[in-house]
């Protein structure tokens, strides 16, 4: 942040520091004030965000009983312990299975429904959107009991499929909204050109639209993955045998034993968070983008 180039017009959408103009009027002093007003609060925000993560890493990598503020000497004992002894190896595979299946369902259902909502107007569309909106007010805890009844009825309790279905459904409104936004951004002209060339609607979609939707598919899939990966309540309600636990349930059992082994708990936490952070770092910009795309006024 030593020199500030004259920002292009898109970059001047700033609240406090519209630099090009301010520099002319206030000169260097205004610039310094701007920067302090930005970076001092930002530093606090970053500290508040990151120190808790660091704290977990610290506990996961330093030997039990140590109070050092750096993870030294480094140890992987806690990971070995939870992975094999704590069953996290199994939980990890279960979580991956649930999250990937939920990802596939969310993408397929999202693409289909999103295309219908973005490209057609049809009877019942308003009603469908209204129901979707209402579902935002349904507490997850509230659905535990009836969903348990349903899954019990179709023999899916204590099956990973109860989680896959539950997660996909809870995720559906977001999947649809994001997908609608991305599909709208693909100009209809491109599709129409393909129709004129003799493509069916389906072929035109596969050949022309789908490749352009790659960011949308990545975004919807990632958020579905993250939310299924994180889901705790459904898993704790529907899954009873330990070989079908997912990572959040495994963690809750480690928490239950707390006071005994913080190193193991931290290692379990690192295993739980690593995939999510990796994926989120990669797709977070789509979240803001997707929201803006979906929420364009008018």
């Amino acid at each position, binding site marked *: 942040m030593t020199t500030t180039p004259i920002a292009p017009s898109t970059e001047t959408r700033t609240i406090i520091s519209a630099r090009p103009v301010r520099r002319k009027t206030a000169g260097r002093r205004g610039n310094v004030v701007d920067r302090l007003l930005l970076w001092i609060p930002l530093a606090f925000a970053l500290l508040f965000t990151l120190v808790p993560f660091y704290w977990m890493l610290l506990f996961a990598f330093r030997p039990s009983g140590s109070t050092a503020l750096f993870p030294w000497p480094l140890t992987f004992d806690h990971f070995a312990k939870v992975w094999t002894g704590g069953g996290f190896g199994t939980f990890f595979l279960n979580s991956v299975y649930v999250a990937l299946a939920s990802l596939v369902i969310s993408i397929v259902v999202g693409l289909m429904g999103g295309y219908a909502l973005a490209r057609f107007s049809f009877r019942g569309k308003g009603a469908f959107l209204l*129901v979707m909106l209402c579902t935002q007010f349904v507490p997850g805890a509230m659905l535990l009991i009836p969903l348990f009844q349903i899954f019990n009825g179709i023999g899916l309790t204590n099956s990973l499929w109860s989680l896959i279905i539950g997660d996909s459904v809870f995720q559906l409104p977001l999947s649809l909204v994001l997908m609608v936004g991305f599909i709208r951004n693909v100009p209809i002209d491109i599709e129409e050109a393909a129709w004129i060339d003799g493509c069916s609607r389906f072929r035109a979609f596969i050949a022309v639209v789908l490749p352009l939707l790659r960011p949308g598919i990545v975004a919807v899939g990632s958020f579905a993955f993250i939310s299924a990966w994180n889901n705790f309540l459904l898993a704790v309600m529907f899954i009873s045998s330990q070989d079908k636990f997912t990572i959040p349930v495994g963690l809750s059992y480690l928490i239950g034993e707390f006071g005994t082994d913080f190193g193991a708990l931290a290692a379990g936490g690192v295993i739980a968070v690593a995939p999510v952070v990796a994926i989120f770092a990669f797709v977070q910009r789509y*979240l803001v983008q997707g929201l803006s795309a979906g929420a364009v006024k008018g």
Partner: protein
Amino acid sequence: MDVAMTSVAQNRTVTPKRRRGRARWYPYLLIAPAAALVAVFLVYPVGSVFYYSLQTYNVTMPLYNGFVGFDNFVAIANDQKFWDSLVFTFKWVIVEIGLQFIFGLILALLINQAFKGRGVVRSLVFTPWAVAGILTTTIWLLIYNPTTGVGRYLADMGLIPYGTSLLAGEDTAFWAAVLAELWKGAPFFAILILADLQSVPAELYESAEMDGAGRIRKFLSITWPHIRLAVVIATLLRAVWEFNNVDLLYTLTGGGPAGSTTTLPLYVAQTAIYDRDFGYGSALTVIAFILLIIFTAVYLRINRFGKDD
């Protein structure tokens, strides 16, 4: 999942390109899987909660199950734990949303500015949002634990006695939970507001500056009116979400000490998971649902939602 409402609300006003022809059944075919999933696993369950609320239904005691009219609701009215949880729910949501609003707005304003490394900073400050509720608990338990957590270092400095557990006292447990939830919740508030901040036309600020407007003036006259609607929706979404979500309290404080941090939905979850008392749990759920709808209607009314200029 709570992101969806902002945009769905907007979508309703948009008419997509229409192509009539032999494929008029296309949209129905395409929407069918989504509609079926929603109908079977969201709409039907909500309906059945109302049905079960009028039943005695406990899986562990099947002999007593059956229709009981409003008995469950009468029992709830006399249930001190219900009233306590209701009071705590309001306290929890109001404190949490107030703080998340302040910090989320500040955060959004900060990361909306142009500066080097903005992309990285954004990813970093948004990360807690992507983290599971249970993981938030894990992290903050490590921080709050009395033997090797922050308390230990404070005790080393002589500020508090050794072995003090923040989660053991009623007051400290409340604020400990508030802080943990703020860590996870403020970023999402910021995401929702940021999406709208980005659509404020830059020219407005430029001409305001020509007229000599300062920072605060610009915020009040340009930024705030522009994002007000988004703030109303974001606040509502976050409030509903904080009301509904039980992961953190369920695992961090377990609703304790002595039930002092039990929200109404957490009480529902405990009734369902531990007691398997589905009739009583369903009746509690119905009350929670009705409260939520009343709250939403009143809130939107106060903010004159839908009659915006």
